[in-house]
């Protein structure tokens, strides 16, 4: 399928760019560990499992924001995005590719973050990992979309958190629920629903964000 090939070509380009620059992923790793340390000092000794789960999700969300802020920078500098928009491929492929690349970075950061979290605070359950995986999908699809919007404006970095956080609130609810509750099925199902709904809306409307 040519759509898949376009996505592959674009995603490859994004991963290549990050490999060259080598700034976003290390920054995300450092940031998430530093955040955990700050949390330790910000809370009274030994936070409960409930509180610590909340912290995990806050950390994930803000680490993701860090990565998302960088996502469309190569395209917006010198308007390279025009070049992609001119190509005969479906514009939504640009969004899919960017989301996949961001997902890769976020997942890589979490591969380090989760063990560190388990070390500092509480052990991580299987449902938490599953919740993180589903949440990552939502974060990257919606975040990349909103990142494309933010980067076209004057305010850029200022606008991204404002646009992203209200949309991310349901993700946090689903994620924390999955981490904490004894029967996480409902919360995981909710995360899946969120991912599906918003992926659909993003996919259908990305065209209008990048082209007239």
């Amino acid at each position: 399928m040519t759509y898949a090939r376009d996505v592959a070509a674009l995603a490859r380009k994004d991963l290549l760019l990050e490999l060259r620059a080598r700034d976003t992923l290390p920054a995300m790793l450092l940031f998430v560990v530093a955040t955990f340390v700050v949390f330790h000092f910000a809370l009274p000794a030994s936070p409960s499992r409930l509180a610590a789960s909340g912290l995990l999700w806050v950390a994930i969300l803000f680490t993701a924001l860090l990565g998302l802020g960088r996502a469309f920078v190569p395209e917006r500098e010198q308007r390279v995005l025009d070049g992609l928009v001119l190509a005969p491929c479906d514009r939504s492929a640009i969004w899919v590719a960017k989301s996949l690349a961001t997902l890769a970075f976020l997942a890589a950061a979490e591969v380090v973050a989760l063990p560190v979290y388990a070390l500092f605070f509480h052990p991580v359950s299987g449902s938490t990992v599953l919740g993180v995986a589903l949440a990552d999908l939502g974060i990257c699809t919606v975040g990349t979309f909103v990142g494309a919007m933010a980067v076209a404006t004057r305010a850029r970095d200022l606008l991204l958190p404002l646009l992203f956080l209200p949309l991310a609130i349901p993700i946090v609810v689903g994620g924390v629920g999955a981490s904490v509750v004894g029967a996480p099925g409902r919360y995981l199902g909710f995360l899946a629903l969120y991912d599906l709904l918003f992926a659909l809306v993003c996919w259908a409307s990305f065209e209008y964000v990048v082209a007239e």
Partner: protein
Amino acid sequence: MTDPGGDGDLRQSVPVGRSHRIPLPSLAAAALVLVTTALALVFFVAPNDADQGFSQRIFYFHVSIAMTAYACFVAGAWQGFKHLTRRDPGADLAGYVAVHQGLIFGSGVLLTGSIWAKISWGHWWLWSEDQLVLFLVLFLFYCAYFMLRYSLEPGPQRENMSAVYSLFGVVLIPVSFLAIRLAKGLIHPVVFTRHGPSFGGWILVTYCVSQAAMLVLAYTLYRVELAGKRLDVRLRELKEVLV
């Protein structure tokens, strides 16, 4: 193939005198009548709630304002949809005004909800109130709508982004509501059962009148603001032609 120095370009980019079916003055009059009636019913006619007493009266407005705000957001999203699919020239401005009204009424929800919470429970804010929390999230979301708009130069890109964002809003409303419910882990009683098993008679009438009043008020304000904005745009277009 040279470019003619055209100055006879009085074509409108946005329709000003677009014919809405109901004329504005009668709308305003209807709003006035309904709001007065609603106030009268709420404060003098509707029976006192057994356990809540006076504070419950605010609830009539709280719920009607909330429903009106939802209607405004949905209307905004519908205008956005029209803009994207049909390239309707007036849709962008109409959507903007609808969202603006939605935000105003949304603030009203937060205000009335807060007052009710203080009277009923002694706190200015209650995380246990689903509707209130939902409107807090929506408030943040739609404030960001305005920040987005102000961050872009007027033009097709701003219109597209606004339209897409309002569509996201309408998807967010049910999803957030579900999330808030899940966050509490229990089922919250829906408003109609709050008033006890017999929701009828004057309570129903009062609620319906308040709801109608809020909707008509919102629509009136929407029409007023829209007309004003369209006039602004037209004025600027004319100035440009004269220059």
